[in-house]
């Protein structure tokens, strides 16, 4: 009997087998599933293909010629940036009705998004998809970005960009995890409740400063320890009651109990 066989009844054997099974399944799944497309891949812009995609996915709500309907606004003039943002974050095509379109799993491939954006851009001039240089945080000043962010963005998205409430169930989402391109596009197109921060009111350098600010605080560890969500005193109060009081009451009960 080999050493391995001799240990087949070891208590950890089951755990190891399960782990092995999970790893194999996971690897197989990953190998079979198509990978996510590259961000800066070589996508082309096929307006005709984009129109077909538009008719299939968008025209029901936005109208055959993107002129808008009661339930959805006109897309004429929103530009490629709007499409790249909305479809690229999975908000569109809208899965179900609610107070607003939430971020969701992306349903179109990068090529499809590019074609769709090209089609909508062809309808009327609008904001273009920013290139990598336009959204490069290393060319932005995080300190200047702090000031711009807190005047224009923090009241909805929170001082640290963790999100906030709007009226009637709408909300400004957390900005952690958003790509720099999507942040730029959201600023310039003003999706849903968000106002439009075009390049004349917040110029491209200022937008890069904001991106640099978000980039910096999202990368920076919390010097004080666990962040508790960066949403302010509400979570701090909760921790004071649950952790602080909990630990102290535990010690108090121990103190008063009779020793064995």
């Amino acid at each position, binding site marked *: 009997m080999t050493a391995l066989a001799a240990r087949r009844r070891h208590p950890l054997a089951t755990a190891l087998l399960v782990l092995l099974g999970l790893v194999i399944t996971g690897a197989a799944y990953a190998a079979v599933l198509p990978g996510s497309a590259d961000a800066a891949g070589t996508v082309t812009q096929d307006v005709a293909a984009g129109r077909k995609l538009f008719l299939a996915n968008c025209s029901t709500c936005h109208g055959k010629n993107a002129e808008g309907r009661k339930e959805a606004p006109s897309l004429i003039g929103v530009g490629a940036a709007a499409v790249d943002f909305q479809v690229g974050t999975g908000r569109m095509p809208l899965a179900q009705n609610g107070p607003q379109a939430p971020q969701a799993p992306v349903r179109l491939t990068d090529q499809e998004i590019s074609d769709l954006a090209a089609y909508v851009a062809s309808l009327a001039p609008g904001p273009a998809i920013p290139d990598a240089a336009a959204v490069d945080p290393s060319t932005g000043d995080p300190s200047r970005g702090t000031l711009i962010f*807190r005047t224009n963005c923090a009241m909805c998205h929170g001082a640290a960009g*963790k999100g906030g*409430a709007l009226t009637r*169930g709408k909300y400004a989402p957390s900005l952690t995890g958003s790509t720099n391109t999507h942040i730029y596009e959201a600023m310039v197109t003003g999706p849903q409740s968000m106002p439009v921060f075009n390049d004349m009111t917040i110029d491209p350098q200022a937008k890069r400063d904001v991106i640099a600010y978000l980039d910096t605080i999202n990368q920076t560890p919390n010097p004080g*320890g666990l962040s508790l969500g960066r949403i302010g005193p509400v979570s*701090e109060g909760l*921790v*004071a009651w649950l952790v602080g009081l909990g630990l*102290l009451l535990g010690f108090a009960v121990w103190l008063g109990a009779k020793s064995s």
Partner: protein
Amino acid sequence: MTTTSTSPAAGVGNYLDERIGASKLTKTFARKIFPDHWSFMLGEIALYSFIILLLTGTFLTFFFIPSTGVTTYTGPYIPLQGQEVSEAFNSTMKLSFEVRGGLLLRQIHHWAALIFVVATIVHMFRIFFTGAFRKPRELNWMIGVTLALLAIIEGFLGYSLPDDLLSGNGLRIANGIVLAIPVVGSYVSFFLFGGEFPGEAFIPRIYTIHVLLIPGIMLALITFHLILVVVHKHTQYPGPGRTNDNVVGYPLFPIYTAKAGGFFFIVFGVTTVMAAFFTVNPIWLYGSYDPSPIGAGAQPDFYMGFLDGAVRLMPGFTEITAFGYTLSLNIAIAALVMPGIITTAAIAYPAIEAWATGDKREHHLLDRPRNVPTRTGLGMMALTFYVLLWISGGNDIIATHLHASINDITYSLRALVFILPPLVYVITKRICLGLQRKDREKVLHGRETGRVFRTEDGEVFELHAPLSAEDRWLLVQFENNYPVELEPATDASGVRRPHGLLDGMRQKLSRFYFEDRVEPVTPAELVAAQHHGHEELSASGGDKPAVTAGAGTSTH
């Protein structure tokens, strides 16, 4: 008395005795008895937190600059570099980022402040639910309520000192509330802030209030609070051997010196653990105060949450404009009248209950909350009201985390704040009465053992073990209050008695309190129950018989 030994301890002892009578002090205090229960530690948590605040706060004052003067931030925190900030903010940033242990002590200070108020609230409710505020401790209760209020104000002023965006907006709200004071609001605002908001005077002024004035008052009140505890001796929970005329426990020296002294280190240690591993009040994320920007999630620290919640719930139409004057009832009622009513009700409560009971005796045995259903119900009602207001203060955080509409949350809470408290009162009272009845059942029929017995005739029943005398005592020792019997407002001839109206109210209040009650089991009832019950098999039941022939209170 001459010293017979020459050890250093004897030398010190002699020195102190000959100057301050240390031997007499030792005789009086060293063996004072204190009872043991974890719920008696809550006040200690508050006390030790206060000491921690004093110690860490002193360190902070060595670095904090209480000034709104403008300076440029040149420290290591990149997102703030080169910005114009106030000296208060700058010095707090410097303390946090450039002083070793600075961030730690700042966080210990803030967590200790939060724990201080947490412990004060829980301690206050423990005192309330166990009736420890009754004679002779009414004065101590009033001191305690005052301390709680001062703690809340002190905390608010404390976290406003760094002059960051979040606390600065809190000060803006405070200023708006002051402006809403009828007639003199604008004058009080200009005197407090030294002019328009934000002004340059406010930070230095709240620094003095926060560092000197309120801590001084609190220290004096806490000292008096503790002196009264020693003078009155601590209350104790009822139990075998414990009467209204004694204290059962352990001596101060050495037991409580070790336990209570050790607990100070434990409280300090737990607060330090929180400060080492949990961020609190990260002012670098907020930036220096400016009246134009604001961040989502604009809340005060939790202990102000009930005020913020009340202000959020008030509908705006309650602001009245007439004859060129504006009466902002929407702000005044929520932020001024409501806390005033709560404080007054809290301070007056011992007197109200004493009026309803007509009881003039001293009380040193605590109540089990179930035995005073009306008081417990009222306390739960107050707690529900407070908690609902507190939740309202976080309605936007609830909206984002539960994907709900903030408007619907606000409408619901407006209704709940009136509907839920009376409902909780009724339910709590019923639960208390039910628990009392269960206690009676337990005494009369014994404890359910879970063992099932079957007789030869096929009868099946569960065995009940009779309670030991000690266990039974806890369930039967309480004394009920009865509605006061007073003469009617008008006598037989129809003549109005003086104080008749007041007496009528007193009678109504007393009936409200004590009409519904469950009596404790008497020995006669137990005997009667034992005659009825066949199912009590012999089981050893206590080392003292339940029924003693001959009278006499147990003085053991």
